[in-house]
């Protein structure tokens, strides 16, 4: 009798039909709106930076595939790393820098440790931090988003330093400088920004007035992405849209973002006022949450599966660690590099968390009971 060929394999015989590649491409898709916003406010140059970052990441991955005799381009992880590197670049960056960052990310951080799944550090962040310390001034020069070019200074009284169209400091940088020089003493963050003549859009000022100044125009601008910064980090709202998509698709879990942002907000509220002499419980959590790369980091980089814990409990510890170090570096450090360094630091701690934080086993026998019997 002629038996047709049949597969014999171990159970289960059905699968949820998930895959590494769909996960990676979904994350890239979730990042797209925020990246496109970056292109809109910073112009074609931002698009060029993104494309160069992605191309160089994929190209390096391809060359390494040639060495290994594998094809890992299609899993989309190199594309995602390139996209994240690009989104973490200032729009006016000299174009060789994203190439270096992407190459470092793929070659040193990922491939040299064994490729996908074996790296202990988030590749995109590794690449970013590498070029940040190598080319610090280029990495700290930011262009003004088009929406802020003709905007009004936040406060009429301090109209001395209206931002020029070519480059401007980020709000976080301004605050840090002001606090460092002592001119920000005793002031809340938005007052510091106002004093420094940081602009705000009419739109944001209108909303702020409508809310009775409960929320500063600066916070509202940051939320909607009218702020100087890296290409992909400026639009909080579009990053949140992407994050909600990933949460709904269960690609990321709530534990890391919630514990990260929650603990960070708590630290800021309790201790954030200290550096400008306002004392405890005077920090401004809301504006701190929408500033810098925090939202991008909390939802898209701290949640990197490879370099974050697998257990829910571990993820919460990881998130709180990220929140603590982000607060520490942002409020008391001298570099405007809090989120990247905080996440990288927790990447280092990740294996230890993984070793000691295990889920509660079903029917675990309590040690005391064992001792009795």
């Amino acid at each position, binding site marked *: 009798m002629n*038996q*047709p060929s*049949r*597969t*014999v*394999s*171990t*159970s*289960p*015989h*059905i*699968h*949820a039909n*998930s*895959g*590494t590649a*769909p*996960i990676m491409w979904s994350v890239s898709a979730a990042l797209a709106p925020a990246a496109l916003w970056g292109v809109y406010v910073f112009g074609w140059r931002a698009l060029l930076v993104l494309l160069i970052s992605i191309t160089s990441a994929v190209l390096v991955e391809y060359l390494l595939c040639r060495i290994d005799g594998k094809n890992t381009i299609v*899993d989309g992880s190199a594309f995602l790393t390139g996209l994240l590197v690009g989104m973490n670049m200032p729009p006016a960056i000299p174009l060789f820098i994203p190439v270096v960052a992407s190459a470092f990310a793929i070659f040193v951080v990922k491939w040299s440790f064994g*490729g*996908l*799944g*074996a790296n202990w550090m988030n590749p995109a962040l590794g690449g970013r931090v590498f070029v940040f310390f190598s080319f610090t001034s280029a990495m700290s020069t930011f262009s003004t988003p088009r929406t802020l070019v003709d905007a009004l200074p936040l406060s009429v009284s301090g109209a001395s330093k209206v931002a020029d169209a070519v480059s401007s400091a980020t709000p976080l940088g301004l605050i840090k400088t002001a606090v460092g020089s002592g001119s920000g003493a005793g002031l809340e963050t938005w007052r510091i920004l106002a004093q420094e003549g940081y602009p705000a859009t009419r739109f944001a000022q209108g909303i702020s007035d409508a809310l009775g100044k409960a929320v500063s125009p600066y916070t509202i601008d940051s939320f909607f992405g009218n702020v100087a910064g890296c290409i992909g980090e400026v639009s909080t709202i579009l990053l949140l849209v992407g994050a909600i998509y990933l949460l709904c698709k269960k690609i990321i*879990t709530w534990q890391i973002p919630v514990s990260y942002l929650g603990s960070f907000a708590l630290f800021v509220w309790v201790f954030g006022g200290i550096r400008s002499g306002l004392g405890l419980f005077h920090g401004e959590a809301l504006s701190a949450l929408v500033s810098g790369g925090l939202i991008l980091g909390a939802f898209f980089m701290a949640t990197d*599966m*490879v*370099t*974050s*814990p*697998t*257990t*829910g409990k571990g*993820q919460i510890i990881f998130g709180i660690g990220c929140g603590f170090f982000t607060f520490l570096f942002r409020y008391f450090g001298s570099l405007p590099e809090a989120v990247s360094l905080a996440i990288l630091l927790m990447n280092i701690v990740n294996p230890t968390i*993984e070793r000691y934080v*295990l*889920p*509660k*086993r*079903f*029917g*675990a*026998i309590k040690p005391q009971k064992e001792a009795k019997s």
Partner: protein
Amino acid sequence: MPRRFGCGLRHIKESSMQRIPTFRKGGVHPDDKKVLSCGHAIEKLPVPSELIVSLSQHLGAPAAPTKQKGDVVTRGEKIGVASGFISADVHSPVTGTIKEIRKVTLANSVSCDAFVIIPDEQQPEDAYQRVDWQAQKPEELLSVVKDMGIVGLGGATFPAHVKLTVPKGKSVDYLVINGVECEPYLTADHRVMLERTDGALTGIMIAARITDPKHIIIGVEMNKPDAIARLKERIAALGYPIDVMSLKMKYPQGDEKQLLKATIRKEIPSGKLPLDVGAIVCNIGTCYAVYEACAYHKPLMERVMTVTGECIATPKNILAPIGTKVADLIAFCGGFSTEPEKLVSGGPMMGFAFYDDQTPVAKGTSGILALPASKSVASTPCISCGRCVAACPMGLTPNRLYRNISHENYEEAMKLGLMDCKECGCCAYVCPAHLPLVHGMKTGKKMGRKKK
């Protein structure tokens, strides 16, 4: 992913205020595919031309043959006797002649001796007399259960008389009847609950007479609302003290550990048995077999099984003699609609793939699946997504177990709780890297035991 519900879920309205019970940790929600066969009433298979009745159809030692090649056997006659405490008797499902005794390989890769029986053309009519089981003592009923070769029909095939024996000094608080049938595709228990309700319920009362529990609960998942309604209706009519508990759908709720957590909220300690939390778990199909055994002295020689899958022309629930060859069952269902890539004995999550359609079914065969070719996906490296950890109902870390096992570090894997793993397949089901996690666990257990 939209769940395809079983027959007529929309008719049931559970109170939304009430929390529907289920187990808490882990679990997955595969597409249940029960709609393929759940509407088909049980059909009796005509006597096949040849049966292969294995002597190892249960957990434990194989039965010892009591017949030889050339012997004439009658339907219900004992042809194998239990050869140890954990073992079970085997009966001939037909009247016929033993052609030979030869080694066969069952679907679960167990190789054992089996009778090849050629049934007579004329089969006698079943004429079992009703026995007054209520007049019998628990010990007598227990010996009948043993004598009739009853084993757990849920799949594990643990000899029923051993399970129902309550050791001295222990008492049973709960008799939990497993009507969950959480494996996708399978609808045999569903049909038994619908069509053999009174028998199954009486079987439960017999089991209750043997074990003397304080409470009796039937756990049924909510995708079988018609079964739940039918059970409730018949329990009320017969006046039995049985509670029907509808449970939220979640695989693997049919595992006794998860079922007890869902129904009586007790966690069986690692390495212990249900009796250690004062419970006995028994499958609903087994209860029906207990009923036939004790109320009619009819041995376990046929069972209801689901023959289904996308490649079966007409999926059916079939009452077939033990020892029927898979090819005969498939032919009874109109053959294959498309050539299947996989034949599976049991459910898709824990069943065994086999290639030979001459393989016989055994007491534990709850279903035969013919599954179409799936997009074959190669394994990729683990990206530590943590989905396996979240899905594991035992609270294990499959990713770490697998890593340790691949590095032949079995001791570490055992320390991480490898022996608690019951190979339910949730981890491998969700793994985006398509790692053969269950395969790893099986290997790890085998090697770990060897090293000990």
